[in-house]
């Protein structure tokens, strides 16, 4: 069995991957696929694929990163096979209440910290971002994650989700504005400290 979980893949027992990383992998798949059975299938496929490809693990990334990269491909394959599932129909616009009737900001949005690097290094920032992401409606979240975390091109996301470009722009606009608003509300004042 492995001695250092971050530098070598366990070669004899893939069940260890499931024990250690199962929940993380499942959370990744669930956020993108929505329903539980599909996310479970994706995790299973990814772990089986990882076991088959275990000799390709070079140790230059952590096991978790390596497994997530394999899962990412499985999720994309599943989305592709599933075909158009997302509805073009959108929920009422959550950004409407952010603006006045004339479409302007009711007041100037509060500034965020001047030092982005300090933010990126702070646990509180990531905790707050996680919280805000979890509050996004699912349809917005899956679209946003595919585009911003998985860094798929916009037209690829449209194809995978079976939505039109204008629907994609609307979803991404809503997701970004909701996240921005949530971070402002829950986390950031000018010093970057998390308000409780």
């Amino acid at each position, binding site marked *: 069995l492995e001695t250092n979980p971050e530098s070598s893949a366990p070669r004899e027992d893939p*069940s260890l991957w499931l024990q250690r990383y199962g929940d993380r992998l499942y959370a990744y798949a669930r956020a993108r696929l929505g329903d539980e059975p599909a996310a*479970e299938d994706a995790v299973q496929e990814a772990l089986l694929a990882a*076991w088959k490809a275990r000799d390709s693990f070079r140790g230059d990334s952590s096991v978790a990163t390596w497994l997530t990269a394999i899962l990412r491909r499985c999720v994309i394959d599943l989305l592709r096979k599933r075909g158009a599932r997302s509805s073009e129909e959108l929920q009422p616009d959550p950004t409407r209440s952010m603006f006045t009737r004339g*479409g302007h900001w009711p007041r100037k949005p509060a500034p965020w910290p001047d030092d982005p690097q300090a933010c990126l290094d702070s646990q509180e920032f990531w905790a707050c971002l996680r919280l805000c992401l979890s509050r996004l409606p699912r349809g917005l979240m899956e679209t946003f994650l595919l585009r*911003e975390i998985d860094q798929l091109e916009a037209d690829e996301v449209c194809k995978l989700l079976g939505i039109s470009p204008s629907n994609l*722009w609307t979803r991404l*606009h809503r997701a970004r504005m909701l996240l921005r608003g949530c971070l402002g509300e829950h986390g950031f004042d000018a010093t970057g400290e998390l308000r409780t």
Partner: protein
Amino acid sequence: MSVRGTLKMIFALNCREASELMSRRMDEKLSVWERAALRGHLLVCGACRRVKRQLHFLREALRSETRAGHVEPPEQLGPEARARIDKALRQQSDDAT
């Protein structure tokens, strides 16, 4: 778009429309008129300049190397699914040996 429509867009863009253009610009190239309208709006609107910086910061953060671990909402694999996957893994690793 008609000339009138274009001019109207450039001079009458509100913050909401500007935020839509800012966001769309992160996903595709805007037309020359849309870019002009957005640039004009940002020139006079400090609030939207601030929001634009925040949206870009969000993208940078999410794509940065410092994004430690996962940002997805935590989930737990159910015991049945866990057992099923474990069985499939054991079967495969047994077959290999």
